[in-house]
């Protein structure tokens, strides 16, 4: 099993304390129900571990299976151009049943984004390229479905329920000390 490739770097979307001892990376698809189910679990983990955990999100849209997955990822990246990646990420997972181009614009408006800029970024090939680059990194890292999780750069193959993830993070913390 390859390590997370490339490792977490400055081009990634990272939430949480910069010097957190444990990093959880998720490859996700905004239209995937399993990722939707993991979303509240991750929020709970973030609340529980506080400054000991930081979260990284990379795009892995299963475009043939989920027709809105790529567009949603582009919307998140466009929001990221205006420093609102994580709020948009949250809105997309909270509205999984309503993903559409209209919805992304509505979310952007709700987040107070510059809409003209958002529209332009949605069409910018560089934004789509970031989504593609994340996808390719996932393939190289051995992603085999969504969500796929990496703990400190190593693929996590346990359960996606709260207790399994929490125990795994606690084990990583014990190693980190």
């Amino acid at each position, binding site marked *: 099993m390859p390590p997370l490739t490339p490792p977490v770097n400055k081009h990634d979307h990272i939430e949480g304390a910069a010097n957190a001892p444990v990093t959880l990376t998720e490859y996700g698809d905004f239209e995937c129900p399993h990722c939707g189910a993991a979303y509240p679990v991750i929020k709970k983990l973030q609340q529980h571990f506080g400054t000991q955990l930081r979260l990284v999100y990379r795009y892995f849209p299963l475009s043939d*299976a989920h027709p809105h997955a790529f567009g949603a990822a582009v919307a998140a990246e466009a929001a990221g151009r205006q420093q609102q990646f994580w709020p948009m990420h949250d809105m997309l997972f909270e509205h999984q049943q309503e993903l559409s181009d209209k919805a992304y614009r509505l979310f952007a408006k709700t987040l107070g984004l510059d809409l003209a800029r958002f529209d332009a970024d949605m069409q910018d090939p560089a934004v789509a390229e970031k989504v593609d680059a994340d996808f390719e990194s996932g393939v190289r890292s051995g992603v085999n479905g*969504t969500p796929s999780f990496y703990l400190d750069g190593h693929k996590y193959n346990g359960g996606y329920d709260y207790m399994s993830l929490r125990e795994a993070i606690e084990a990583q913390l014990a190693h980190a000390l």
Partner: protein
Amino acid sequence: MLTANDQAPDFELYSTPDQKFALHQLKGRNVILAFYPADWSPVCGDQMSLYNEMLRFFRKYNAELLGISVDGKWCHTAYSQSRNLHFPLLADFEPKGEVARKYGVYDEKNGQCQRALFVIDGEGIIRWSYLSPDSINPGADGILQALESITRKNEQYATIDPSGK
């Protein structure tokens, strides 16, 4: 299980209800053979759907993907349409598992193919193989590494001039 440097056994299987597909049709191209236990496992990103999303990466290395299970050709047709697959699924149906046996990846106990990958070069030689536990989707990183290795070797040989110049 067959492994690197073995000759890949040729075969001909139904890819649609009325068309057969033979391995030798792909001579000159790299081939990825993905044996898997059965169509219709209840997961978003099951192995065949996952590879479906990755075809453009395989094609960069001049590789074609073939999925093989013992499901019949009509089952494959329905499954392929349902998952919107853009590569052939071959029916190792009759005689049951004959091709999987040739590759050493038939699960006699359960009467289905094991979850196994083979990367075959343009000359029909296996360059990499991998057996995954049935319940684990092996992803595509091993496939890409094998294809890269084939491409690098081909490039090396292309620069060697036998006349020594």
